[in-house]
């Protein structure tokens, strides 16, 4: 009884989206030969795959459900646990097999597990290589345009139109009117902030916590405002 009450009270639930780097193993036509080759290689680096997410790419081999199960079993015996399949025939899959993944992109060359999660590092750490961590946009942003800058702050000198979007790993500064959406701290930076000269925004978000225009008062509309995160609550306050 009490538990049903609880679910009724909390009428919203927050889901997060995160991306991770995974290894992809792609077996070649003769599975047994490929497994032997894998054994030979892992002998030199035992435990290489232990505790790491691995995706099985089946696009170069044609396997039935039994074949896929056999391969998964063989890999599991070698300590390689498959979290998802890629390039598999959907008709061969059932809920007991790992899920089919799509939309994967190749990671950068240096993306080994040790430095594969730059999101977990503070922004300052990536600036050690003298790379600029801010993006200056001297024009206005038109409706339908998206600016994505995961590695730092975005400053826009013009206005940001309704129906446009800025996604920044760091903070967002808009010197004109902000009429679109601003999503700061997109890679898990809760200290990012959003500043604008005039707030007509559709949505503000920091580190995945968001508020829409409906959810803030008239006192911060059409005003210079800043927005920050305080214990998981997005604050929008006048700048002056």
């Amino acid at each position, binding site marked *: 009884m009490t538990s049903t009450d609880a679910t009724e009270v909390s009428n919203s639930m927050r889901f997060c989206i995160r991306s991770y780097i995974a290894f992809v193993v792609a077996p070649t036509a003769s599975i047994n030969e490929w497994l032997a080759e894998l054994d030979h290689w892992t002998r030199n680096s035992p435990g290489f795959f232990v505790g790491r997410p691995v995706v099985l790419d089946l696009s170069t081999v044609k396997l039935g459900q039994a074949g896929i199960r056999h391969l998964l079993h063989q890999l599991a015996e070698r300590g390689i646990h498959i979290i998802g399949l890629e390039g598999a025939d959907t008709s061969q899959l059932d809920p007991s097999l790992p899920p089919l993944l799509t939309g994967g992109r190749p990671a950068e060359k240096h993306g080994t597990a040790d430095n594969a999660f730059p999101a977990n590092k503070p922004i300052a750490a990536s600036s050690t290589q003298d790379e600029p961590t801010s993006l200056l946009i001297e024009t206005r942003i*038109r*409706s339908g345009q998206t600016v994505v800058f995961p590695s730092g702050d975005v400053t826009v000198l013009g*206005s940001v139109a309704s*129906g446009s979007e800025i996604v920044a790993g760091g903070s967002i500064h808009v010197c004109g009117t902000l009429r679109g959406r601003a999503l700061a701290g997109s890679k898990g930076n809760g200290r990012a902030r959003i500043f604008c000269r005039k707030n007509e925004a559709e949505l503000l978000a920091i580190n995945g916590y968001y508020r829409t225009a409906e959810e803030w008062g008239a006192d911060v509309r059409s005003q210079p405002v800043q927005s920050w995160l305080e214990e998981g609550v997005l604050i929008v306050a006048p700048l002056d």
Partner: protein
Amino acid sequence: MSKVIVVTSGKGGVGKTTSTAALGAALAASGQTVVVVDFDVGLRNLDLVMGAERRVVYDIINVVQGAAKLPQALIRDKRIDTLSLLPASQTRDKDALTEEGVARVIKELRTKFDWVICDSPAGIERGATLAMRFADTAIIVTNPEVSSVRDSDRIIGLLDSKTERAEKGERIEKHILITRYDAARAARGEMLNIEDVLDILSLPLLGIIPESEEVLRASNVGSPITLNDPNSAPARAYCDAARRLKGHDVPMTIPADRRGFLDKLFRRRAA
């Protein structure tokens, strides 16, 4: 020096075709040669507004695909002989347009006319992007209401990225033409006012066309408003806009609110 203009908006029903016809007729009436080109393949309307619907034999698709020569498809206006129409096809769709074909047609039109005015279809898909593709100048038709203004903003972004000029790193000249402006409603705050529209779009203003029954009447008799009723307020506003296109400095007049003035008068008496 020939100039290619695209009349575009994003949103439908804001007055692109009416404005194309009115500006084309106004420019042609000043003695320059003008062709108005209907890019709304499948939903053509410019032939009706120009009163040429019963004279269409070949259309832009025939010319793009090489089935007809350009002079065969051009329809000369009966009222002004410097004005021509290149109609769209009603039986095909926008996929029948190819970029190479459109490039060839526009190039050939440039050699024949002082002004090539392309009437873009609504939307941001193939038809609209091909209509703007080879333009030197864009006229963005906007109604003073939020959805039209936001769609115009979207189109401006495309003009700055998808046109041939933009891709070559050159600037495409852009103007805002505000149509269906109702001074009384703007005064009551039921419409965006001119400053709001220009603040959002931040482009120079080509003209303000007042909302008027005369525009609808002209469309229905198949005559551009600038020919059908040249002394009406919208016709005069279009003529001013045409002169601004030619580079003349014409002072901008915001259509007056006569009823608003009377309202004020009565309010004062009541008080």
